[in-house]
């Protein structure tokens, strides 16, 4: 009997599995390095005083 793969999205599942492995293995390292890079070069930054600053429309 010849074995077959019936799932039409089998190729995407294989790619998804490989991506999942890469994400679990290297995900935390990549996030950590990006955070260090951002901390050094300030690519994404915000002003803490602006975060809680809003205008109350009712007044």
């Amino acid at each position, binding site marked *: *009997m*010849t*074995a*077959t*793969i*019936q*799932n039409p999205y*089998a*190729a995407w*599942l*294989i790619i998804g*599995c*490989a991506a*999942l*492995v890469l994400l*679990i*293995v290297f995900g*935390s390292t990549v996030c950590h390095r990006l955070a260090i890079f951002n901390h050094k070069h300030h690519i994404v930054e915000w002003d803490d005083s602006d975060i809680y600053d809003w205008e109350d429309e009712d007044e």
Partner: protein
Amino acid sequence: MLGTFLCSYATTLLECGAATVRIEKNVGRMAEAYGGNAEVSIYPRHVEVVLKDDESGTTEVCSKAISGSVINYSTVSALSKLSWNCLDRRTPLPVAMRQYRRITHAARIPLWAVTLLAALANASFCRLFEGDGQAMGIVFLATVCGFHLRSVLCRRHGVDMRIATILAACVSSVLSCSCYVFDIGSTPDIALGTSVLYLIPGIPYLNAVSDLINGHHICAMSRFVHAITITVCLSIGLYLGLALMSFQGF
């Protein structure tokens, strides 16, 4: 002091995957080297050493639980060698304790090296079952991904070993199905069958049989149940992978 040392020594051997017969012989040899007589009771999670001093006639009882099971045969081999050194060369106890600490704190083989070696071994299994070169390559990649995934999930993320085994088996089986999906090689069935062999707990099975022969039935049953649990998890992962791919053919 000798009783505590022997208890730690026996616990380390149990943690590293030594069979009970080896633990009994090694501890007995070391006790003999320092003029004592040791009786070892080995349980699934802890070791008890009763040390009788031949000269003073005193008895010391020490018990210690294992912290975790990390198979390491190089440590087992080094500790066995240490016991022979103590007996043959009459190594003083403080020196033996220092050597014991050095052996237990020695650096392990890096994870990437273990992963590559396991993947090579599994690819060789594929060849033994008459898989072709392409199948060997796919098995190699599937093993690298599954083995590394399981190690990272257990060590870094603290995931339960059984769940990590299910995930690793699922990932490896899905990846090995690429032989069917992308029409790689002429032996895709062998690639699929051998892609999860690295998860089979060979050492617990061997130790269980060894303990059974040696008469340590509680330890043997414990190791046997552990090995069966891992095998069931591996089977669940393989089934999940095949179900995901809607595999039909067996």
